[in-house]
């Protein structure tokens, strides 16, 4: 496989395999993820793209039967070494989920949740962070007058942007997005895509998507996974215009998947 040259990768994944019990979900994955760029993982259902995403903030730790081999380094530091605190790692690597999942609390409490559990008590610091995160998530104008109302009263697209605001409020370095638009209508999807474009100025964004056009629109780099293996990884324009691999071409032209 011909990997792209990435000067300053934030993640260096080498020989990563992941097993659910005996079954291998990821096989010998190796790729470097660029800093402050958008990287998309694409592939058919069950190819392991979400599993790969979740290894990056150790969300797979919560499943008892998971076993991991190989190495993932973030800024050169092995994230699966025993000295690394998964809780601390997750503060640096935020996540936005497929199904928007705001807490049944007020909009404000949702945004500052991560800061509160990190021990921030200062009211003005919380207010400031909430405004910053909501602004960055392009939601501030819509909700600034009803911060104390329940988050469950928002529309689907607003809820997903709230979840993004919640993730960026703790000021992570990386934001993982697991099919963030799959439950949203085209208008809401377009807003999230615009938002992703803005976010990469400050954050590294890694997005799993089913929607190839979306990957083509938002991602700088794209990785194609198939049956747990990384088939091809390159600059997005290359993947979508002249992929080296036959299977990549078949997938992006809709011959399977």
């Amino acid at each position, binding site marked *: 496989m011909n990997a792209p040259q990435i000067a300053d990768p934030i993640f260096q994944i080498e020989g990563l395999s992941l097993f659910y019990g005996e079954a291998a979900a990821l096989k010998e994955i190796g790729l470097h993820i660029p800093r402050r760029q958008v990287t998309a993982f694409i592939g058919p259902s069950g190819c392991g793209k979400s599993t790969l995403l979740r290894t990056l903030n150790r*969300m797979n730790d919560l499943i008892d039967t998971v076993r991991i081999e190989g190495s993932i380094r973030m800024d050169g530091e092995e994230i699966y070494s025993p000295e690394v605190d998964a*809780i*601390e790692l*997750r503060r640096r690597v935020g996540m936005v989920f497929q199904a928007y999942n705001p807490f049944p609390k007020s909009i404000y409490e949702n945004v500052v949740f991560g800061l509160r559990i990190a021990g921030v008590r200062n009211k003005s610091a919380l207010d400031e962070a909430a405004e910053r995160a909501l602004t960055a998530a392009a939601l501030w104008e819509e909700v600034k007058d009803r911060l104390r109302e329940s988050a469950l009263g928002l529309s689907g697209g607003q809820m997903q942007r709230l979840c993004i605001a919640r*993730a960026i409020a703790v000021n992570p370095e990386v934001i993982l997005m697991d099919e963030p638009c799959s439950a949203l209508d085209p208008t809401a999807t377009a807003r999230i895509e615009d938002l992703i474009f803005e976010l990469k100025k400050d954050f590294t964004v890694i997005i799993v998507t089913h929607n190839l056009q979306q990957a083509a629109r938002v991602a700088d780099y794209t990785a194609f996974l198939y049956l747990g293996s990384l088939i091809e990884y390159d600059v997005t324009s290359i993947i979508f215009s002249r992929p080296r691999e036959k299977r990549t071409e078949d997938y992006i032209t809709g011959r399977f998947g």
Partner: protein
Amino acid sequence: MGRKPIQRGEQLVWLTGAALTVTLLATVTLIGVVMVNGLGYFWPSTLAVARLVDGGTAMGEITQRDYTDEGDLWRIQFKVGNRDLYGADFRWIDAAAIETLNYPEDAAALEREEYGNFYGFLERLDLATVQVDAGLPPWERLQAARDAVEERFEAIESLNESVSADSHEMERIRLAILELRYEGGAGAEDGIARLEEQLAPVRADFDARNAEAAARLAELRSNTATFADAAGRTKEMPILSLVRTYRPNAMSVPAKALFYLGKVWELLSANPRESNTEGGLFPAIFGTVMLVMLMSLFCIPLGVVAAVYLQEYAREGLLVRMVRIAVFNLAGVPSIVYGIFGLGFFVYGVGGTIDELFFPERLPNPTFGTGGILWASLTLALLTVPVVIVVTEEALAAIPGGIREASLSLGATRFQTLWRLLLPIAAPGIITGFVLSTARAAGEVAPLMITGVVKLAPALPLDGEFPFFHLDRKFMHLGFHIYDVGFQSPNVEAAKPMVFITTLLLLAIVIGLSIVAIVLRNSMQKRYAGKAF
């Protein structure tokens, strides 16, 4: 159109509607019967005097009328009272045997400290030690005399308070002597002798004050009122023994209403009299509420923590499934079984051990090794904890997994997720479970009977005396009160209204507790629920 009714499925609608109607009807009837029988009791009923064909008389409240199949009046039940004169409180008289029935204005009803009510006419007053204005009419003189006697009685009561202070001091010294004697060793004899020396003056003071109180009480009791029944038989009674005197036939409706409220207040605030068939229910109300509160104090944390472990931490497997089934089944174990377990484990096991370790000098008299409110509430907590576990587990399981993932992805620990998100979200469900278990626990009687409930408790489990909470004390309970008054009292017929009233109060407490919990739950739900999802 065209379809047969059976295909339209309307029968099911009717069936479900009918089932609901039957349930509601049964509930409403139950509450209605209890209310009708209980609420009327305190209203002062008119006193009837019957002259009989054979020359006899009967006087009292008319409690029941029986009719023949043709609808004619067949017989009347009088509550004739005057148990000390007649031996029985109630009397059936055939309608045919009654010559005249009238309602004299000066017919008096007396509530007494013993022998139940007296119905009759005031004959004379013999006032030995209190003075009242002789110019007053007889009935008003009686009222004035009662006030005067009451005033003196309060003075004797305050004397009794110092008597009881003495008695506490004596008990303290007695226990200290017991402890020294048990420990033995050098100096113990000296210590005992010193304590005995301390004891002597206290005992002398106690005896003197006690004797004085008794003498003054005897003196007060020599002020008497004499009443005659309808047949002219007289009875002389100490004015002190009259709890209430009233002439219902002469009372206006507002006066009766005031009387009614007075009785209700007595019910809620006073101690019972006459082996619980008269007077108030305060100790039983207090005992019931305190029992339920103590029980919740034990069962909610225990149940919630157990449910959290099962739902959030335990690895799903055969063992967890079996534990869950066992918990479900525990909810169905008969309460008497819990009672017996409580007696064996808490009272004899834990209580007995506490006595051996901390109060060995008092043995064989038990301190904690006998029934008490602590053991009863722990037994009830055990009985209700399965419900709390099941409901809490369900409430936690209903929280979408995405909430947990989102929280963890923000760097929260599992405990932070639980404490800040899961438990608050599950709280309304947990409270619902608590309502269910409270309603069940408040009405339980069987397990209490062997773990500490008594017919008449000498002291409340909470009072002004250090250490304020006396968890080793026995207590009274409304549920047990119903059983005791309704089925164990010497005068069941006279006690019947009290049973209904006690039932009504127990229902009110259960419903009251439920309403508090429901309001709490709704306010929580409002805090979390959104407009739409």
